[in-house]
């Protein structure tokens, strides 16, 4: 069983569209995260979320919104997609505190 799974693996869409990326974890972790990895491989936190609190990186545009239907899922919704949104998006989970985070295999988003 894959611990952290993301769908789709590839997403190609037109500028201006709205899209969602799904993330599911079976590790029972309390906290889930979304990261963006740019073309230079730089990984940057976008959101962290547990059942109590959403922490948003202030540099993330409000076109991006995480939605958690339950503890095992944290989906990423993106409105009005722009060319600069092209990147690989990673979901991760963790137990919080000083514990390692576990990553999915990413969703490569390409905006035409």
């Amino acid at each position: 069983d894959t611990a952290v799974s993301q769908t789709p693996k590839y997403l190609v869409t037109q500028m201006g569209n709205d899209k969602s990326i799904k993330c599911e974890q079976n590790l029972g972790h309390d906290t889930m995260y979304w990261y963006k990895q740019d073309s230079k491989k730089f990984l940057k936190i976008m959101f962290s979320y547990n059942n109590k609190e959403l922490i948003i990186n202030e540099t993330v545009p409000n076109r991006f919104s995480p939605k958690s239907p339950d503890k095992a899922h944290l989906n990423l919704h993106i409105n009005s997609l722009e060319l600069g949104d092209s990147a690989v998006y990673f979901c991760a989970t963790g137990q919080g505190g000083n514990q390692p985070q576990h990553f999915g295999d990413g969703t490569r988003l390409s905006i035409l």
Partner: protein
Amino acid sequence: GESVGLHLPTLSVQEGDNSIINCAYSNSASDYFIWYKQESGKGPQFIIDIRSNMDKRQGQRVTVLLNKTVKHLSLQIAATQPGDSAVYFCAENYAAGAGSYQLTFGKGTKLSVIP
């Protein structure tokens, strides 16, 4: 050798040699550090971690060294194998307030193993 510039830093190593990947971290309040390995088309995979009350930790073929004085981490890979070829990231963890922790990644180093 190692090159640093606009592109991802790259370290080329002969198979069987030892590799050393270096990382400078930024926050003196960070108290937990992790090394991740990222293969092409995959997510970052945990390799080894170290807490700030230690200066060395060993795993299977990997060793992490922590120098808090100069805010420096290194990852040593013994007897490097072709399967070690990947991008390696260091990450620092610190308390961001309100009970939450922030994991911040370094820029990454691409390790290429020459057979």
